[in-house]
C-alpha cells in the first residue's frame, strides 16, 4: 500500500477540481423519477497514467447520478433510462480527471471510464473529496491503482444496469 502522501496531488487540489467541474456542468436538483432496477449507488472509475498509475473513482446515490445525467441528456425531471446513469457517471469521472490533470507534474494520460465495485480503502492510501449535492453526496477518490477498488465487469452494485 502506498501512502496518500505519495500521491501527486493534494485533497485541496481534488476538491478544487471537483468544485470547478460541478460548477461548470451546473447540476440542478429536482426529484428525479428513477426507473425500476436502478441501483442505490452509481459508480465510475477512470485510470490516469503517468509517473505512477492512479485511479479516480466516483460514487453517488442514484438521485445525484440522475441529476448529473439530466444535465447531459437534457431530461429534466426524468431519471432517464437506467443504462444512462452509469454512462453519465463515467463522463463525470472523465471530465473530473481532465480537471485534475493540469495539477499533476509531467505527462499524464487519461483512460476510458469503466465501473467498479466499491470496496473499503484506507484513508491512509487515498484522498477523498466528499461533495454535498442535493439530497446526497458525491464521493470522489484518488488512489494509486494498486490500492484502488477492484474492477469487475459484472459488479453486483451495477449488475444488469449497463448497456
Amino acid at each position, binding site marked *: 500500500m502506498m501512502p496518500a502522501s505519495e500521491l501527486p496531488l493534494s485533497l485541496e487540489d481534488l476538491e478544487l477540481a471537483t468544485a470547478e467541474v460541478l460548477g461548470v456542468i451546473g447540476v440542478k436538483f429536482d426529484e428525479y423519477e428513477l426507473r425500476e432496477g436502478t441501483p442505490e449507488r452509481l459508480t465510475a472509475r477512470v485510470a490516469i497514467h503517468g509517473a505512477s498509475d492512479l485511479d479516480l473513482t466516483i460514487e453517488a446515490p442514484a438521485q445525484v447520478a440522475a441529476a448529473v445525467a439530466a444535465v447531459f441528456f437534457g431530461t429534466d425531471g426524468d431519471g432517464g433510462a437506467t443504462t*444512462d446513469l452509469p454512462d453519465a457517471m463515467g463522463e463525470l469521472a472523465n471530465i473530473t480527471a481532465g480537471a485534475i*490533470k493540469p495539477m499533476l507534474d509531467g505527462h499524464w494520460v487519461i483512460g476510458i471510464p469503466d465501473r467498479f465495485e466499491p470496496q473499503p480503502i484506507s484513508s491512509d492510501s487515498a484522498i477523498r473529496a466528499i461533495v454535498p449535492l442535493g439530497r446526497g453526496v458525491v464521493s470522489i477518490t484518488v488512489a494509486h491503482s494498486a490500492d484502488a477498488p477492484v474492477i469487475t465487469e459484472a459488479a453486483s452494485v451495477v449488475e444488469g444496469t449497463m448497456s
Partner: protein
Amino acid sequence: MSGEFPARIEGATYALVIDDSRAARMLIGRAVRSLGLETLDAEHGADALAVLEESGPVDVMLVDWNMPVMDGLEFLKRVRKIRAHAGTSILMISSESDPKMMARALIAGADDYLVKPVDAEVIGDRLSAMHLL
C-alpha cells in the same frame, strides 16, 4: 451510429459528433443543434469512418480523444488521408488538457481544440471562427 441517420436536409450544415459516451454525445449534440446544425453521431473513430462512408462528407466533426476501438488521434490521422474529408473542419473536444497532446491533435489534423466540459456558447464561438455559423 452507422446506418441510423436520416436522409440529408438540403442546405443544412452537418456536424458529426464522435464520442464513446452517450452522455457526451447528447450534451454536445444538443449544443450543436441549438446553433442550427444537423447532427450525426458515432461511438468511436472506426464507427465514424463507417458513418462518413455511408453519409458522405459533413461540414464539421467534433471528436473526443479517449475512445475504445479507435481513439480520436488515430481517427484524425486516418480521416485526413481521405480526400473527401481532407478539408472538413475538425474540432477536438476532450478532457485531455495537456498542451503537448493538444499540439499532437493539431498536427494530426484538428483545426481547433476544446477541453471538456463545454457548452453551446463555447462551441458556437469555435464554429463561428470556422465560418460555420
